[in-house]
């Protein structure tokens, strides 16, 4: 059997007579290839309020089953009322955030004002789609206050599809977070409609949600960075999470 299809002629004859592709009988050449992507784990999410927005990201950085760092940020403040949070691959996150900062600085020099949150959101989408055929392996959330002072949250996929939504979560713990946010904030298909949460309750809920993700997702934990963006600006704090 070995070498039966080694010449193209034999293969062609076989396909003509049988009308199907035969199973290869000789070993194809071994191909070693560098895989340029890795998922460094982590969870990010954000919730929009009427005059504020809350965003959270854990600070664990993993590679395979190893924790590389317990205190590496996934967030970058881009303007005085806008933050970007990224899950996925850390190296790409660093690159993307650097590029966003450069572009926003250029915008400020050109227009003598900082871009609005929806301009930043559109810019990120364009940056991501620019690399459509070698995408950034990043899952982003843009959060801030829009020009009317309302909380704005934008969610993305890796190649730039995005939408403005009331809340969004990304990263390895996204599924765990989404279900709680659906229940507590989206209040979808529920028998009893409760009052919407106020600001303090929302922040407390967000802290509990990421703590819950840290209980079940091995790539989420250590610390969480909390961003509360309101009329006073971007307020940053940190909470402890499970460290195992």
């Amino acid at each position, binding site marked *: 059997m070995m070498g039966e299809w080694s010449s193209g002629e034999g293969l062609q004859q076989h396909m003509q007579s049988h009308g199907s592709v035969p199973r290869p009988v000789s070993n194809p050449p071994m191909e070693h*290839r*560098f895989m*340029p992507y890795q998922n460094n784990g982590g969870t990010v999410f954000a919730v929009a309020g009427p005059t504020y927005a809350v965003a959270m990201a854990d600070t664990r950085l993993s590679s395979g089953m190893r924790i*590389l760092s317990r205190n*590496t940020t996934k967030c970058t403040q881009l303007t005085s009322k806008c933050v970007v949070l990224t899950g996925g691959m850390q*190296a*790409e996150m660093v690159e993307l955030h650097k590029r966003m900062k450069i572009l926003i600085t250029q915008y400020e020099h050109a227009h003598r004002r900082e871009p609005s949150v929806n301009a930043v959101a559109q810019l990120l989408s364009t940056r991501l789609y620019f690399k459509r055929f070698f995408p950034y392996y990043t899952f982003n959330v843009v959060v801030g206050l829009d020009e009317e002072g309302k909380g704005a949250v934008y969610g993305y996929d890796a190649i730039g599809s995005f939408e403005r939504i009331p809340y969004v979560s990304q990263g390895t713990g996204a599924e765990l977070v989404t279900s709680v946010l659906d229940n507590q904030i989206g209040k979808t298909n529920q028998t009893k409609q409760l009052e919407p949460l106020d600001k303090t309750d929302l922040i407390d809920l967000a802290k509990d949600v990421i703590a819950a993700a840290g209980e079940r997702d091995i790539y989420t934990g250590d610390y969480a960075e909390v961003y509360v963006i309101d009329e006073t600006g971007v307020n940053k704090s940190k909470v402890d999470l499970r460290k195992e």
Partner: protein
Amino acid sequence: MEDCLRLRGRRAPDNYGYSYHGDYNQHVLCGSAVSSGQEPIKHTTRPITTSSTVIGLKFNGGTIVMSDTGVCYGNMLRFKSCERFCQVGDRTVVAASGEYSDFQYLTRDLKEMDTRDWVQEDGCSREPSSIAAYLGRTFYGQRSRLDPYWNQMIMAGWQKTSNEPYLGYIDLYGTTFPEDYIASGFGSYLAIPLLRKEYRPDMTEDEAKALLQKCFMALFYRDCTGLSTVQYAVATSAGIRLSDVSTLTHKWDYKLWLTPTSQLPVSASSW
């Protein structure tokens, strides 16, 4: 330098006195495609001559980073006394694990940068964090060309502006971050648990050195590519100190190791 980057692992045809692979410029510029019907461009798909663990940690008043001096060819310990440190400027030192030739190339690249800085004669020197950012971009750029520098680098230094020690990590994907203690290679499995247990930010230099030696002993006993000859560099506000190579004292005649496991009670097995 851009030319050096593209030519890594290949020499310009002029150096050979004849042209090879057809049109040289087309060859180096066409990325991963096949150049004019010639051989495809070859990328690093796996490391060949590799070195293993580097461990670094911050202590009270500085940073220390230690490595053994072995470089392997596959599973053979081919080179036993290779220095794996590269000093950049007056207060940064880079230690590498992974492909040794990539490290040698990067050493040359960093030294060139150093020379360009020196030529300015402005008395300025780069911060360790700036050099880490430069290396991080370099690594990310190469990984994006699908031709990575196959290294994990640990950088130690002293930040002049904030007057504090610096310790950073860079890998072949372009992952970069600063940390209090970092281990690469086999040490990321064996040494990290020891460091988690015994590391304190207020350690003295001697305590830090002793902890690193302990880690390298564990590695020497269990990592088949590990060596007992180690070297370390210390970064403080006074600059960089690179140690001589020293040999760790090791001991193999523990009673437990000499007794066949068949003669031991199950609970006393060395496993």
